[in-house]
C-alpha cells in the first residue's frame, strides 16, 4: 500500500462552534422495502429493527441520504410496525439514496447485511407519495392452542357484538378502546392433517383495519377472551401476513392487497 502524498490527503479543520460539515448530497431516488421479521427475531422491537437496518445500510454501503442539521440522520421512514413478539411477512420501510440504485441489488445486499430472521423480501422504486394511505388493513395469522369448537364459538360471540371495549397498558397508562369496529373478518383456516402434537390447534386469519387508536392482534385476542371466553393453552403465535389496500369483500381468499402494485405498474 502506497501512502497518499500529504498534500493530497484531505485537510479539514472544523470551524469552531459550528456543526461539522457533512456530505449532504440530495436524495435522488426513493426506494420502498418490504421486510419480514421471522422466527426468534420476532422478539425484536421496532427500535431494534431500526438500529439493525441503519447498520445494515452502512455495511452494505448503500448511499443513503442524510438530513441536514446539527445531528444528521439517515433518510428512512417506517410504516406502522408489528408489535414486539409478533412475526411479520409484510413490514415496510422507505429510504432515500443519493445515487441511483438497483432495487434488486439493494434487496440482496441489505438482506445479506441483516441477521437471518430480519429478511428483505422485496424492494421497489417508489412512485407516488401516497404509500402510507395504501396501508389500509392488515391480515394477521394467529396460531391458537385451543380446539376449533372453542375458537369458532368465541368468534361468533365476538362478531355478534357491535362494540367490545378492551384495555391496554401503554406508556401513558391504561387505555380503554373499542376493538370490534376495526375487525373486518375472523376466519378459521381449514387444515388437512391436524396440528403439531395436539388437536387443540387452530389457525385463525384476522383482517383488521388500520384505525386510530390502532387495534393490534393482541387486542383482538383480548376481545375473544373477554366476550368468547377463549383462553388458549399457550401464548398465541401471531404473524402479519400482509398489509395493504383492502380488496373488495368478495375476494375472500385475498382480502388485503399488495401496496407495491402501484409502484410496479409505474415502473
Amino acid at each position, binding site marked *: 500500500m502506497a501512502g497518499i502524498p500529504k498534500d493530497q490527503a484531505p485537510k*479539514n479543520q472544523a470551524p469552531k462552534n459550528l456543526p461539522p460539515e457533512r*456530505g449532504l448530497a440530495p436524495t435522488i431516488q426513493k426506494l420502498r422495502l418490504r421486510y419480514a421479521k421471522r422466527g426468534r427475531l420476532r*422478539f*425484536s422491537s421496532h427500535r*431494534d429493527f431500526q438500529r439493525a437496518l441503519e447498520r445494515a*445500510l452502512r*455495511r452494505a454501503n448503500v448511499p443513503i441520504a442524510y438530513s441536514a442539521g446539527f445531528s444528521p440522520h439517515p433518510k428512512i421512514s417506517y410504516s406502522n410496525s408489528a408489535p*414486539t413478539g409478533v412475526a411479520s411477512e409484510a413490514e415496510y420501510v422507505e429510504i432515500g439514496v443519493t*445515487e*441511483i440504485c438497483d432495487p434488486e441489488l439493494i434487496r440482496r445486499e441489505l438482506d445479506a447485511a441483516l441477521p437471518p430472521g430480519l429478511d428483505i423480501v422485496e424492494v421497489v422504486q417508489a412512485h407516488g407519495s401516497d404509500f402510507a394511505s395504501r396501508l389500509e388493513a392488515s391480515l394477521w395469522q394467529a396460531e391458537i392452542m385451543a380446539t376449533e369448537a372453542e375458537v369458532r364459538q368465541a368468534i361468533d360471540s365476538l362478531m355478534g357484538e357491535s362494540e367490545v371495549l378492551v384495555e391496554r397498558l401503554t406508556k401513558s397508562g391504561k387505555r380503554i378502546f373499542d376493538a370490534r369496529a376495526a375487525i373486518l373478518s375472523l376466519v378459521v383456516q381449514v387444515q388437512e392433517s391436524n396440528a403439531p402434537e395436539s388437536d387443540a390447534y387452530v389457525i385463525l386469519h384476522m383482517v383488521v383495519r388500520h384505525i386510530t387508536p390502532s387495534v393490534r392482534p393482541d387486542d383482538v385476542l383480548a376481545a375473544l377472551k373477554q366476550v368468547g371466553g377463549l383462553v388458549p393453552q399457550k401464548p398465541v403465535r401471531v404473524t402479519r401476513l400482509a398489509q395493504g389496500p383492502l380488496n373488495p369483500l368478495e375476494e375472500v381468499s385475498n382480502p388485503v392487497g399488495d401496496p407495491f402494485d402501484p409502484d410496479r405498474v409505474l415502473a
Partner: protein
Amino acid sequence: MNPRVAVRGASVFNELETLLPFVSKPIQYVGGELNAVTKAWDETDVRWVLMYPDAYEVGSPNQGVQILYEVLNEQDRVLAERTYAVWPDLEKLMREHAVPQFTVDAHRNIADFDLIGLSFSTELGYTNMLTALDLAGIPLHADQRDSHPIVIAGGHAAFNPEPIAQFIDAAVLGDGEEAVLLITDIVKRWKSDGEPGGREGVLLALAQTGCVYVPRFYHVEYLPDGRIHKVTPNRPDVPWRITKFTLMDLDAWPYPKAPLVPLAETVHERMSVEIFRGCTRGCRFCQAGMITRPVRERSITGIADMVENGLCKTGFEEVGLLSLSSADHSEIADIARNLADRYEKTQTSLSLPSTRVDAFNVDLANELSRNGRRSGLTFAPEGGSERIRRVINKLVSEEDLIRTVTTAYSNGWRNVKLYFMCGLPTETDEDVLQIATMAREVIRAGREASGRRDIKCTVSIGGFVPKPHTPFQWAAQLDHESTDARLHKLKDAIRADREFGKAIGLRYHDGKPGIVEGLLSRGDRRVGNVIEAAWRDGARFDGWSEHFSFDQWMRAADTGLEGTGVSVDWFTIREREYTEVLPWNHLDSGLDSEWLWEDWQDALTEVAVDDCRWTPCFDCGVCDQLSTEIQVGPTGVVDLPMPAPRLSPVLVDRTESTDQVART
C-alpha cells in the same frame, strides 16, 4: 414441571419461547446477533460457555468476552457460546417451567458444556453467577460437582477469587487469550485420553501449569484473632504461587475481528477497538492500572486496520478507542488525526474515553468530534485537593485542570464532567469540600473563556473501595455513615453557592453499596457463606441500585460469618499491617509486595511517583518477574494511507464504470 429431554447440547429454545412473551425486552435472550457463531454440537470436542454475569445490555459490549468467544471459535472442533444473567422476571418463569440457564447462541443448557468461563470485571456479579449455576442444575459448591462443567473465573475480580473459592473450580489471572487456549488443550487431551483421574485429574493438570488457580488444592489456616496464618498447597504436586497471563504482542491478536452487533439496545451502542493494554500512571487506588501492567500498545497501523475492518463487518456509526487511559498512547495524536481524516464525511464518529486532565486531551477531543457529535467531556481528577491527589498519585494541579477546562469551554463544549472519589485514605472533610471550590473555579473560568453563562459542570463522586494488589490494599475503608456525612457536606456547600451552585450538577451514591463491594473485594474464603446466604435471601444484580439491598447483605453477613469471629467491619474498615497474610498473597499479579508497601507508605507521606513509561523504572516488579516489557511506540508511521474505497455494491450500472460509482 415439564420433564426436560436430556439430550446433551439440545436446544431449549422451544421451552424458552413460550416464556418470552411475558418478560421485558425478550430480544436480549434470543441471540442471533450479526457475527455470532453457531456450531454443530457433535462436531466439537471442547465446549465453553462464556458468561458475563450481568444483564445482556451491560455484558454484551464487553470486549473480554467477545475476544475469547472469537479466539475459541476460531479453533477447529472447539465451541464457545455466550450466556448472560437473566432478569428476575424471566428467572421466576424459568424456575416455574424448569427451563435451564441457556446460551444465547444455540440456546443450550449451560450444564451441558465442558467449561464455564465467567468474566468478572467487578465483584458485583457473584450472586448472578449463583443464579446461573442453580438454574442450570449445577451444584453451587465445586466439591459437589462430578460430570458437571468446570467453572472458571476470569477478569479483574479474579485476582482475588477467595470469596468465591467454594463455587468455582478454578480462576485465571490476567489476559485470557492464551489462557483459554491452554485450558482447551489440556481439557481436550484429558477427554481424548479417557478422562484420567476424573474431575480431580483435569483440575490437577490445570493447576500444574502454574497459571491456573484451583482453590481446592490450597488450604487456608487462620490465626486465633481471625487473620490468615498461611495459605499452603494441600498436595505436593501443585505450585505455591500462581502467576498471571500477560499477552505481549497486541498486533498479533487483533480481536475481535468480527465484533458482535447486538439487536437489543446496549449500554455501548458502538464498536470498540482496544488501543493498548495496561497503564503505568500508578494511581494508587486503581486496581485495573496495577494488575494489567506493563503497558502494551497496539500500533497505529494495527489500530487503523481494526477500525476499518470492524466498521465493514458491523456497520456501527461510532468507534470507541478503548484502553485504561487512551490519551496516553504514544501515537495518539497521529491516530486521532488519521482516523478523523479517513472517516470524514462518512457519518462515523470516533470517541476517546478520556480521563487525563490536560489541554492536549481537549485537542484530541476536538479532532475526534470533527465527524460526529460533540458530547460531554469527562475528566477524572479523582481527588478534590492537591494534597489528596498526591496521596492517590493522581498528579494533576489545579492550574492544569483550570487550563484544560478553559480550553474545552472555549472550544465550544458546554458541559464538562468531573469524576471524584470520597473516602480515600487520609482524607478529611476539607479535601472533599475542595471539590466545591474547584467546581466554582471551573465555572468561573469557563464563563470567562466562553463569554457565556449557560455552561455547566457535573461533579460525579463515588465511594472509594480499597482493592487487592494495589498500594491501598492495606487501607481502612471509610464506613458508610462517614461517607454519607461527607457527601452531604459537599452537597450543602454546592447548594449554598448562590453565584455558581446552579451551574454545578452533583451526582453521588450513598456509601452502603461500597461496603458490600469492599467485603467482596478484600474478603477471604469465609465470605463465601455470606454470598450464598445473600443469594438465598434473594440478592441479584447487586450492581443495580434498584435491586441492591444493603440490609439483605448485612443479614447474610450475620449468618454467614457466625462463629468466625470476623465481621463486615473487620474486612472493610480495618487497616492491615505489612505482616498480615492477605487472602490473595499466593496469587501473583507481578507486583512486588514490598514495592506496594513502600508506595502505600509514600501515599501516607504524600509522596507522588511518576509514570514509569516516561521516567526511569521504579521497580514495581512486574517487568522483571514476568519477563515482560513495556511496549510503546512510536512506530514511525505518521500518515496512514486512506483505506481502499469500498465499492457500493448496490448501484445501477456498476459494471460499466466502477471508478465513477465508487464512493470514498
